[in-house]
Structure formats: structure tokens, C-alpha cells
């Protein structure tokens, strides 16, 4: 096992991607993800890989598209406004069934917004990361260790399902340092017989393409893709439950806000309130099964987010009216405090007559 080291989240993402066999990185500078690109620019040449600072986020994602077409493990990273620019390319990747990893170290929005940590791209990531009928797998790590772990496995998931995968982090997770044990280097990329690497007169030509001018053909393509999406929803849901077994007030939070919610839940337990935390690690697929498990004891649900409540509807769809779902959060880069969340839990506890 590797030594435990102190590392920034952004750097852990980069190092872990390298260890997953990623040898191509295309990016464009934006705060607060810049350390990731800087790390790649230092390490890639030493690993025989390519670091390229593109002329824009748009160019970067299209370089990812090209490198993925050529069968490589490839990654790009950005922060919220840059992800909006990449969304066209991500849609093309989804439409052409191309694997690749996209990092979003979120900051406040809309527009130029701010540079402080935010989770306000939840809906963009889980609903419409680009136009058309498509999804990307979205991981929401909440520690630097998980930044490393999910950047590492994201490439396998991307290759397995031939889909873009997003790591949805934020400025706090990207900038902070924590102890991390880095994964061992691996070479697990599968054969990619569909890749456009030159046919060498040994097969028919491969075409990487998202254009289907005949409606029936496009529908058929999308339906085939949705069969894969169903498999992802069945097999790839990930979550962590903390003190959730007998929880009456069930808190849901992902990423950085889950850290805060966890502290609040622990404090609530000390105060005699049966609170618990469900922390979705995959945001798409959303871990509805985890919520189902809490229904027997839950009196109310609380979503804690660094946005205006973007995950609330997903929770309501899982709870299906069987308990009230409330929201507490801050947005714009303001980080909620455990104390504030505790106050909200106590208030809900009173209201629920628990």
C-alpha cells in the first residue's frame, strides 16, 4: 500500500487519473481547479503523456473527443462556467458513445458568479449536461481520499459503459489538503475495437459519429443507449449511510456539504435526536434505493446543499410523498455551518413530534 500523504483535492484527482492510465489531459485555466492542470503539466511529460493547454474549454473538450475517439484514456477539468462551455462537447461524446472523464470543481454561479465553493451545478450535471436524450455518470466525492478513489474508478466506468463520467467536486474539496492513500498504478483499459485508429486494411472503416439523419435510426441508437443507462442505474448507485438505521430525521447531502451535515447529525445524536445521513456518492444514477431503506423510520427528510435546493426534487421522487422533504443550504459560495444545520434538524424534530 502506498504511503499516506497530504495532498490537495485537485492534485489527488490528477495523480489518481495518471495512476488509472490517463495519459492525455486537455484543459483551460479557471479557478478553483487550476492546481489540477498545473499538476498535470508537471507530471504528464514525465509519464510520456500529453498535457495541452487548449485555447478554450470548447477546444479542450473537443480534444478530449478526438483523443477518446482514438481510444485513449483522457480527461479534462474545469469549473462551473467552463463546464457550461464544455457541455456541447459532452453531448457529442454521449451521442458518439465516447468514454472520458470530466472534472467540475464547482464555484458559485450563474454567470461568472464567484470563485468560492458551490454545488449549484447539480441540476446541470444530473439533468442536462448538454442537449439531447443523454446522461453522464456523476460522482460526488466528499473527501480528498474519495477524490482519488473516484477519479481512479471513473475511467473504468467510462470505458465499461462507453459514456462520459463527471466528477462533481467543488472549490473546497479541490483546494483543501487531507491525508490520502493513492491507488496503485493500473492498466485496465479494455480493447476498443470501435476506435478510429486507422483500419490498417484489416477491417471496415470505423466511424465515430453522433449524426443520424434518419429519425428511426437515431431513435434506435438512443434506445440502445438507454438500455445501458438502465444497467448503470441498476449497478452503479453508490452512497454512504451514517447513523441512518433508525433515523427519524434523515439528512441528505453530497460532496462538501455532506461533511458539514455529518457533523450536524453527530451533534443531533448527542442531543438525543435520532438523526441520520444518507450521502449520495453517485448523483446520477441517484441512489433512490438508499432512501427507500430509510422510509420505515423516517419522519422527515432534510436536504443540505450549497445551492438553492437542487437535489430536493430527486429526494421527493424517491420519498414519493411518504414524508415531508425540507431544505437547508447556502449558495453563492457561502458554506453552511454544522451549527446552522443542527438548528434546522432540531426544528424539524420538534415539528415532526418525534
Amino acid at each position, binding site marked *: 500500500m502506498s504511503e*499516506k500523504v497530504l495532498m490537495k483535492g485537485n492534485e489527488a484527482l490528477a495523480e489518481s487519473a495518471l495512476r488509472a492510465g490517463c495519459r492525455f489531459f486537455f484543459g483551460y485555466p479557471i479557478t478553483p481547479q487550476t492546481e489540477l492542470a498545473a499538476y498535470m503539466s508537471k507530471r504528464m511529460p514525465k509519464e510520456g503523456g500529453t498535457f495541452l493547454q487548449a485555447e478554450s474549454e470548447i477546444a479542450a473538450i473537443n480534444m478530449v473527443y478526438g483523443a477518446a475517439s482514438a481510444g485513449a484514456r483522457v480527461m479534462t477539468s474545469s469549473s462551473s462556467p467552463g463546464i457550461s462551455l464544455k457541455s456541447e462537447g459532452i453531448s457529442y461524446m454521449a451521442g458518439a458513445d465516447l468514454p472520458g472523464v470530466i472534472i467540475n470543481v464547482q464555484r458559485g454561479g450563474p454567470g461568472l458568479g464567484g470563485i468560492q465553493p458551490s454545488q449549484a451545478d447539480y441540476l446541470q450535471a444530473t439533468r442536462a449536461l448538454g442537449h439531447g436524450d443523454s446522461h453522464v455518470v456523476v460522482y460526488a466525492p466528499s473527501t480528498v481520499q474519495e477524490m482519488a478513489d473516484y477519479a481512479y474508478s471513473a475511467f473504468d466506468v467510462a470505458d465499461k459503459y462507453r459514456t462520459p463520467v463527471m466528477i462533481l467536486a467543488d472549490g473546497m474539496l479541490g483546494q*483543501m*489538503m*487531507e491525508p490520502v492513500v493513492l491507488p496503485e498504478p493500473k492498466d485496465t483499459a479494455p480493447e476498443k475495437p470501435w476506435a478510429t485508429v486507422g483500419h490498417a486494411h484489416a477491417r471496415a472503416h470505423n466511424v465515430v459519429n453522433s449524426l443520424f439523419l434518419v429519425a428511426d435510426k437515431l431513435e434506435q441508437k438512443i434506445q440502445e443507449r438507454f438500455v445501458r443507462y438502465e444497467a448503470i442505474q441498476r449497478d452503479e448507485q453508490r452512497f454512504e449511510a451514517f447513523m441512518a438505521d433508525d433515523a427519524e430525521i434523515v439528512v441528505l447531502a453530497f460532496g462538501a456539504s455532506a461533511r458539514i451535515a*455529518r457533523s*450536524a447529525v453527530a451533534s443531533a445524536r448527542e442531543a438525543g435526536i435520532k438523526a441520520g445521513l444518507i450521502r449520495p456518492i453517485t448523483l446520477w444514477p441517484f441512489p433512490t434505493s438508499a432512501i427507500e431503506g430509510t422510509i420505515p423510520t423516517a419522519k422527515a427528510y432534510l436536504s443540505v446543499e450549497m445551492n438553492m435546493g437542487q437535489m430536493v426534487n430527486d429526494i421527493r421522487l424517491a420519498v414519493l410523498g411518504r414524508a415531508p422533504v425540507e431544505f437547508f443550504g447556502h449558495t453563492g459560495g457561502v458554506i453552511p455551518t454544522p451549527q446552522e444545520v443542527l438548528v434546522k434538524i432540531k426544528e424539524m424534530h420538534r415539528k415532526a413530534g418525534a
Partner: protein
Amino acid sequence: MAPTTKRDIILAGFGGQGILFAGKLIAYAGLLEGREVSWLPSYGPEMRGGTANCSVCLADEPIGSPLVLAPHVLVALNQPSFDKFAHDIVPGGLAVVDSSLVRQTGERTDIALHAFPATKLAEEAGLKGLANVVSVGKLFAETGFCREESLFVAVEKCVSAAKAALIEDNKKALKLGMGS
């Protein structure tokens, strides 16, 4: 305070004083002892020529928010930093202050204030630019937040290979702070 106490720390000063590095030393010492640690810098435009600060947490349970709002400990290496964070220190908390640069230390009587001329001491010892590490030594002397040897190993881990020549100076600076 024992080495196992949960400790939320803010270090603050001018950009260029090595605030972030000082925080990293503390966090690394915690890591070496198997503790839960986190380090979170201020980032963005406020780093451009202005003040720099970072939050460091040492704990034995998983750390929730790495952003310290109510520090047990403040290390302030300039006046604006002291003024900004002194009133956030929890009652019974502690401040290590570089009195070479912080003249006004306010009126809080519910904290332990350790003012000492870190910058001056460092310069006199031929360790110009290491007031940050001297202050970490001082913080150790006042709190014993980790085992002494952990700090010296942390120096070796945190000083980049390109600056390995500075390891000895950093260790001297730690000792200087510990003895002051």
C-alpha cells in the same frame, strides 16, 4: 492541551510570509501521528498581494467542515490578520502573535495571548523569511499539539526537493520558536 485534543487553527498573515506552508507543517505533523487532519487555504484574488490565511484542523474523528470559523488557535503574523480573526477565537483559546508586526493586541482577556517577535528573532538568527516556522515552533511550545519529533519529520516532508537545502534552516527555525 494534550496532543489528542481536537484543534481548529487559523493561520493568517501577508502573502509571502509562508502562512500556507506553516499550516501544512502542522497538518503534516498530525498526519504522521495518524490523526484526522485538514488544511484549507483562502484562494483566488485575495491571494494576489493581499492577506493569506488557512484553516487547519487536527482531530480524531472525521473532520466535517475544514473551514474554521471559531478557531481554538490563531497564529497571526500581521496586524490586519489579528484584527480580522482575533474576535473569532473561542473563549479559552489561544493566539500566537508576531509582535514584530502586530502592535495592537486588543482587549480580549478570555484567551491566552502569546506575543513574541517572530520576525525579529528569525532575522537575528540568520533565518530571514522563516518567521512562519518560528511561530509554529512557538505554537508547539505553548500547546504541545503534536509530538516534537513529528514536527521535524514534517519539515522533511513539506520542504520540496528543489529546496532541500532549506530543511536545516527550517528545523533551526522550529527550535528557535520552541525556545522562545
